[in-house]
């Protein structure tokens, strides 16, 4: 069903469930719906599992935030998201501590932690330091995801105008061939999840 208000529409389905478990089937179904909507025009995907009480409540949300939402839709119009991962960069010696012991000289746990520490030092810490700015030539926006020991890959999201998507992927392919040591992978196109997250919790603008 579709809920209309102020020139915006929520595509919705009724459910009796209290929560939507983020299992593979539900997530892919969510992705299929967003992807189908994107064939017709710009879409702001909501966070998976978003529920409203009923259609009237959904309509109130659209009415309350329509200015911000329309601006967000304009921002992602004609754009796709691509996900980039960099699985490895050359290890850097730490000048403060001198050469590190070779992994063979450490226990397995210590070697793993040392590898993570090397990555942490060797990789950029902000979007301003993304190592290959050439990839932004065809992108409207980008962001770098926070890294953690459990997510050691460098992860980035690129918002790319549909018209430049092939050029962007060609740039990625060229970089993959130029720097195979970086272990670069790209997936997508995805709906603009990473560029659809304004925090509207502060109430009506």
């Amino acid at each position, binding site marked *: 069903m579709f809920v209309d208000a102020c020139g915006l529409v929520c595509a919705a*389905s009724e459910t009796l469930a209290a929560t939507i*478990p983020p299992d593979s089937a539900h997530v892919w179904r969510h992705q299929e719906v967003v992807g189908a909507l994107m064939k*017709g025009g710009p879409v702001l995907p909501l966070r998976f599992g978003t529920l409203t009480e009923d259609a009237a409540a959904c309509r109130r949300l659209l009415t309350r935030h329509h200015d911000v939402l329309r601006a967000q839709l304009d921002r992602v119009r004609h754009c796709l998201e691509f996900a980039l991962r960099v699985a490895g960069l050359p290890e850097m010696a730490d000048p403060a501590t001198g050469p590190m012991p070779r992994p063979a000289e450490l226990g397995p746990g210590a070697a793993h932690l040392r590898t993570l520490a090397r990555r942490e030092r060797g990789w950029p810490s902000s979007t301003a330091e993304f190592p290959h700015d050439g990839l932004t030539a065809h992108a409207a926006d980008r962001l770098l995801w926070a890294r953690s020991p459990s997510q050691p890959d460098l992860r980035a999201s690129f918002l790319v105008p549909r018209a430049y998507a092939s050029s962007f992927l060609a740039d990625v392919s060229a970089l993959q061939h130029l720097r195979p040591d970086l272990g670069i992978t790209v997936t997508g196109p995805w709906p603009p999840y990473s560029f659809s997250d304004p*925090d509207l919790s502060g109430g009506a603008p």
Partner: protein
Amino acid sequence: MSEPEPVPSCTTGEIAVADLLDRVLHKGLVLWGEATISVAGVDLVYLGLKVLLTSTDTVNRMREAAASPPDGRNHHAG
């Protein structure tokens, strides 16, 4: 309406699944307000709507497309 140029797709495989989960579960619009009752499993009531947001124009184009001969795609809202 002319068809947009096809974009090469890479949305299968383990890394694609990980990238999709990253985005679906951690990104996307968060519409907190008096009308939002649950996000990502924080449940409050037992009746609701799962919602996605788009524009009226987009839906009108979808309705027109739905009236055209089927192309085999599934357009059901989830």
